[in-house]
């Protein structure tokens, strides 16, 4: 069941790849706007790079959340999924995993290219990609709660940002801190471990909360 959900969502994402690509392009364009606003000085850009890339990643993964349940909700698939005997926890986990594979992973893989634009060193680029790989699943997991709560509401897209962005704060802090630490040459392990801890915590609790929220929204 879990595998079926993941494969199904990946297939659907492949069929509608414009959506997937637009999230990536959003990330790319948002990050590229900052040098235009701040100015081309390399030193300054290098200083703000971790924060800028991470904030853009936050916004991009938030935008991707709209796809998580909306289509299945509209065509009634979600209701059927709720009726299956399999635990809803696994269904949610599968859908989130598929979302992360098409939004979080490409984002992390793309980030070194953007980091080069900001003049980051090789090690910082690697840490950035790793921190994004660890952090984006947390964003997808926590975001899925917001996506489930706002299902079918008017102004859902805007509402989800108000609900979810404050909850993203710890991920942003630890993610950007890891890249910062690698730039000044201090240990990055602490921040990455904390990101890992957040991931473990949200893996356990977030799908459960999302499942509860789905039941409430589909009542």
């Amino acid at each position, binding site marked *: 069941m879990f595998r079926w959900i993941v494969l199904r969502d990946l297939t659907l994402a492949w069929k509608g790849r414009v959506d997937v690509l637009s999230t990536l392009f959003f990330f790319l364009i948002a990050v590229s706007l900052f040098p235009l606003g701040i100015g081309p000085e390399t030193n300054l850009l290098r200083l703000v790079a971790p924060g800028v890339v991470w904030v853009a990643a936050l916004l991009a993964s938030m935008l991707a959340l709209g796809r998580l349940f909306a289509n299945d909700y509209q065509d009634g698939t979600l209701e059927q999924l709720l009726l299956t005997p399999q635990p809803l926890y696994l269904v949610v986990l599968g859908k989130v995993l598929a979302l992360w594979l098409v939004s979080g992973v490409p984002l992390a893989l793309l980030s070194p290219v953007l980091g080069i634009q900001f003049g980051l060193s090789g090690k910082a680029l690697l840490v950035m990609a790793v921190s994004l790989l660890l952090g984006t699943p947390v964003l997808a997991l926590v975001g899925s*709660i917001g996506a489930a709560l*706002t299902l079918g509401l*008017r102004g859902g897209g805007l509402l989800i940002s108000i609900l979810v962005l404050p*909850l993203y704060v710890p991920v942003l*802090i630890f993610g950007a801190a890891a890249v910062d630490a690698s730039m000044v040459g201090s240990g990055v392990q602490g921040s990455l471990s*904390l990101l890992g801890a957040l991931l473990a915590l949200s893996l356990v609790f977030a799908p459960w909360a999302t499942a509860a929220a789905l039941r409430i929204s589909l009542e």
Partner: protein
Amino acid sequence: MARINWYKYASPTNFYPFAEKMIPWFAFPAAVLFIVGLYVGFFVAPSDFQQGDAYRIIFIHVPAAWMGMLLYVLMAIYAAIGWAFNARLSSMMASAISITGAMFTFLSLVTGSLWGKPTWGTWWVWDARLTSTLILLFLYIGFISLQASIDDPRRADRAGAVLAIVGVINVPIIYFSVQWWNTLHQGATIRLLGKPTMAPPMLAAMLIMLAACWLYSIAVVLVRLRYIIIEREQNAARAAEVSV
């Protein structure tokens, strides 16, 4: 027969007149304590040797900040009870508390920045406490706007409960991450409240103000609760009429 049947008051229709009777018992002591607390705070408590009279905003600022945090937890507890036991009144209580809690959080931010200007020379510092209070305000705003955009009151109650519980789990994580972030970035060198001890009248004024804020919150929450009951039960009555 002195025993009170508490379950009776779990029903909104029974609670409504009860709340009406209770409100003056909280509102008047709140008003009296506000006056007493402000009097003690402004005229009895001595000036601070470092900050002069500017520190006196503490008598509003600290109780407001405490209320902002406590009410969030209280709101989450009521929302969770309402969700778990299907207790309508409890969920209504959570909605009633959310506005007051957001108000106090906002008040603590405003008074904090008014206090920061004369003592730190700046309106805003990205201090750990300020930042986490700001995020707490965002969490309140999320709760209120989620409930406001759901038309079905039952769904609004439960969705709010999920969000409030997730928020409560996150509050300590956010608090510690912000604190850690602050020390990492070597933020402001100025610290809140460097004083080791407080003069007794200062402490007394603060505790009186805190009690006043509690009583005020209870009174206002009860008033708001009554409005929520009127609104929802009227709808229920109308729906019953239509179905008949």
